[in-house]
């Protein structure tokens, strides 16, 4: 056997092998049990020849392994190029639910207030005249006390008309400083229309501390409005009247739909009326045993659905209560 010739033949065969099958045949031919090299190795008697032939065997093994890996990779590549999926086919479907827009908005409000260091309060909805009106300094002749405006269960019990009774509960339970926001359902005896439903959700922030100012109310409200409607929003105030605040103001937020250029939502004024606000009336503080010379407070509230309407461009109230999945699955 001529080792040199054998090596040359084998390397030539390795180089020309075009598939993993072929390289396997080359392996059998040159390194198999009956190959010339294996037979020669069995015959070796001297150390020098043995070393030389083993080195040759290792070289051939290396060459064959290398070529085989190359060919295997090429074959895999070829195979994968043919294994094609239409990536535009829909994926396996997992059914996902959705949070209601009222909840989505509620969370934004909660988080904005949490960031300001407020507690979140979720309180009872069936209330007494005492908590819903008397403690909040509603005049005996205030129209909300009318059975036309408010749902009564009997002369003493009613469905709360705003979330404010929960503020009384908290203020009765502890001394200031108080920073809280209450959220939940409220009830007004309104006929059902495209934009009104007798049940809706409200949020109402309350702060009572030493030397809080009207300016603090304006700043806090601006912060919350920006959290709800975007950092570009502006807020302005107009004098109003609420029994439980003095002074009272109606905040307007710059229209998030048209960015003050004027649109149907803002009636082409650039501003949207949004709830009520004011400094807590000293009578309310006195009613719950808080000294108004020592502590001042502010409060402001707004409808959650109304906020969600503005956030999502929903012009009617109906979608919030009809619960149609075609609507809900958009959120």
């Amino acid at each position: 056997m001529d080792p040199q010739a054998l090596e040359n033949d084998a390397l030539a065969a390795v180089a020309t092998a075009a598939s993993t099958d072929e390289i396997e045949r080359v392996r059998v031919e040159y390194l198999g049990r009956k190959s010339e090299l294996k037979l020669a190795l069995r015959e070796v008697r001297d150390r020098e020849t043995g070393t030389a032939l083993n080195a040759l065997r290792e070289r051939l093994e290396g060459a064959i392994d290398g070529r085989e890996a190359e060919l295997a990779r090429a074959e895999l590549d070829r195979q994968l190029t043919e294994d094609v999926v239409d990536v535009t086919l829909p994926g396996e479907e997992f059914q996902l639910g959705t949070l209601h827009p009222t909840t989505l908005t509620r969370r934004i409000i909660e988080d904005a207030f949490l960031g300001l260091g407020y507690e979140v309060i979720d309180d009872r909805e069936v209330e007494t005249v005492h908590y819903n009106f008397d403690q909040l300094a509603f005049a005996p002749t205030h129209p909300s006390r009318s059975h036309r405006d408010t749902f009564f269960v009997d002369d003493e019990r009613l469905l709360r008309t705003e979330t404010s009774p929960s503020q009384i509960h908290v203020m009765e339970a502890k001394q200031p400083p108080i920073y809280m926001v209450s959220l939940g359902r409220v009830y007004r005896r309104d006929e059902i229309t495209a934009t009104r439903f007798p049940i809706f959700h409200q949020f109402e922030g309350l702060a009572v501390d030493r030397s809080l100012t009207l300016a603090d109310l304006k700043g806090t409200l601006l912060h919350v409005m920006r959290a709800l409607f975007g950092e570009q929003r502006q807020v302005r105030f107009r004098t109003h009247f609420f029994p439980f605040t003095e002074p009272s103001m109606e905040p307007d937020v710059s229209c998030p739909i048209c960015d003050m250029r004027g649109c149907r939502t803002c009636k082409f004024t650039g501003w949207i009326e949004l709830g009520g606000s004011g400094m807590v009336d000293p009578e309310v503080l006195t009613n719950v045993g808080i000294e108004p010379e020592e502590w001042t407070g502010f409060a402001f509230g707004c409808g959650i659905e109304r906020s969600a309407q503005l956030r999502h461009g929903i012009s009617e109230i109906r979608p919030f209560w009809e619960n149609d999945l075609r609507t809900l699955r958009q959120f």
Partner: protein
Amino acid sequence: MRVPLSWLRDYVAVGMPLDELASRLDVSTAVVAAVEHRGVPDLDGNLALFRIGKVLEAGKHPDADRLQLCVVDVGEAEPYQIVCGAWNFGVGATVAVALPGAELPGGLVLERRTLRGKESAGMILSERELQLGEDHLGIIVLDDGEAGTPLADVLPIHDVVLDLEITGNRPDLLSVYGVAREVAALFRLDLEPPPGMDPAREGDETVKVTVEDWEGCPRYVGRLFRDVRIGPSPAWLRARLNAAGMRPISNVVDVTNYVMLGLGNPLHAFDYETLADGEIVVRRARADERTLRTLDGVERALDPSDLMIADAKRAVAFAGIMGGEETEISDTTTHVLLEAANFEPTGLWRTSERLRLPTEGSNRWVKGVDPYLAEHAAALATELIVKLTGGHWVGHTDARAQLPERPVVRFRPERASAFIGLEVDSEEQHDILARLGNERRDGEYLVPSWRARDLWREVDLIEEIARFRLADVPFTLPVRREMMGRLSRFQRLRRQVEDALVALGCSEVYTPSLVESDSADDALRLQEPISVELAVMRTALLPSLVDAARQNADAGNERIALFEIARVYLPRRDELPEERVRVAGILEGGFLHTKGVVEALLRVLHVDANWMRSEHPLLHPGKAARIEAGVVGELHPTQLDGVWGAFELDLDTLFARVPERIVYEDVLTYPAVLQDIAVAVREEVEVGALVDTAREAAGPLLREAKVFDVYRGEQVGEGRKSVALHLSFQSSERTLTDEEAAEARGRIVEALVDRFDAALRA
């Protein structure tokens, strides 16, 4: 409150641009709901084409029976010939004329035209054509005026009406004069004195007024007029009432309404001859007085708490709310008794509430009318009645109790600045308060009588400063102390429940807490619901969710899965109901599908539940389960078409079982020994009982026991089933030996055989 600017200008010289007036009022005083332009367009020169005309000739159109051919002096060199369709005037009448080229309200431009062969140069106008009113009767006939005088000088043919939303604390603004006072203060303008001056009284007849209830009626001015001629009011008065939103009726009634709108004090006029003994008694209704027919023709029940105006014999009016039909002013009335009174708000509010009868008058009384206003109101009304009806004022009475003192309020300018968060110069503060009619006395202010109910504390005066400077108040945040914000445990877990159910494929809904009927007989019921569908406070969420699912199915929506978190209201006799927050869900699919969703929710919360067979009216009798927090089951097939699952759980109960914190267990260091067993038991044995028994028998080494197959078939035998369990034995302290696992497994098998007559199959 509708405020015509033409009227407002009687009392204050409004010269600023309209925008500025509206926006200042809007920010500092009351919402300006609308700015309404009425009447003739105020375009260049247009108003000059509307003139007073004198009718020089008038006669039938030669070729048209229904038309009048007039010659009218309009102040030009030559009179104009005008064809007119109305006949309520003749030669010598002073009329309102629009000349050719004039643009009428609504945009019609007049041209010279020929009617049945006669040229008509212009138009003789009615109220309707000028948008002054709705009168169809005919053209406007003015009292007098020189031909050619601009019509705008005598009638508000172009006007702007501000529609103000007056808040409950400002009844003083429910009058044009009150708004004028506010405008004067806001813009530093001079204010005319209140209108109305008593003419000379022409007699000294007694007006018998007896007030039996001074609390309800602290003041009653009664005035008697004789020989009054009832008829329509003049055009200017009709125009003002119309612009302010009230319909003119007849001169005396119009005067009472005009004074109410002008000054804010509601008045009433009685036909004097219909009052028994010509007497007025102010008292509560008597027990034997049943009803009164009010002037709207409705027979209304009396309650002994109602404050009534009565004559010597009977009640004739609900004080301050509405007069009676029998004593109202009619076309034939000749003697009039005028009431300018003051009524206390609370009692009047109760009557108005009970009668469901809010009127323009009661709306002012319930907010509180200045008791000192009655004499001004009486003067203005007297002046107008005498002037417009030719009547004679012959009698006067002013019955009054001690009227309330004007409040004196301490005021500290530095406190105002600190409270507002804006440094306002103290001189400016004093100036604002003075302009609003407050009189300064050392460190105190004497509040004007028309604001006495609203300004009685320092903070009320601070509000006056704040509203004048509202736009200048900066945006700051509180300097915080000792508070931190975070969600409560309940709120955190509630969000987890919401998120888990969304991830499990359920969409959140909000359904009304008011329902048509509820399974609880004593559920809270509204006294006056707005509809039968929203009448009862629900004690469960599931029925509402069934409705929501049905509506979605009807809409053709697929793979319906809904949940809601809301309160239910559990009645407690006379107390407030117990309100519990619940989560409920409804989803397409059978019992095990819904149970799977609930189990996944429980896993999210790390809550173990005990599943027990149960019953529920809305659920399938064989497929209803109860866990500690509520019910889970398959919907009763009568509820909805198809197979549906539903659950309703109480959140507090559920959250009570949520561990405070998750305690780590080492499950990696020492491997678990896994074994499966299968046992055959009678069909009625619940697999839950097998698992419980296995746990009990094996003790803490049994980390997990899970049913993975239930098999029925010949090999198991009739009435029996084979239940296969994965068992996983593990210790967190050492590697278990095979012997330990085998021994625990043995105890399980023994217990199952013992308790359930189980046969070990593998």
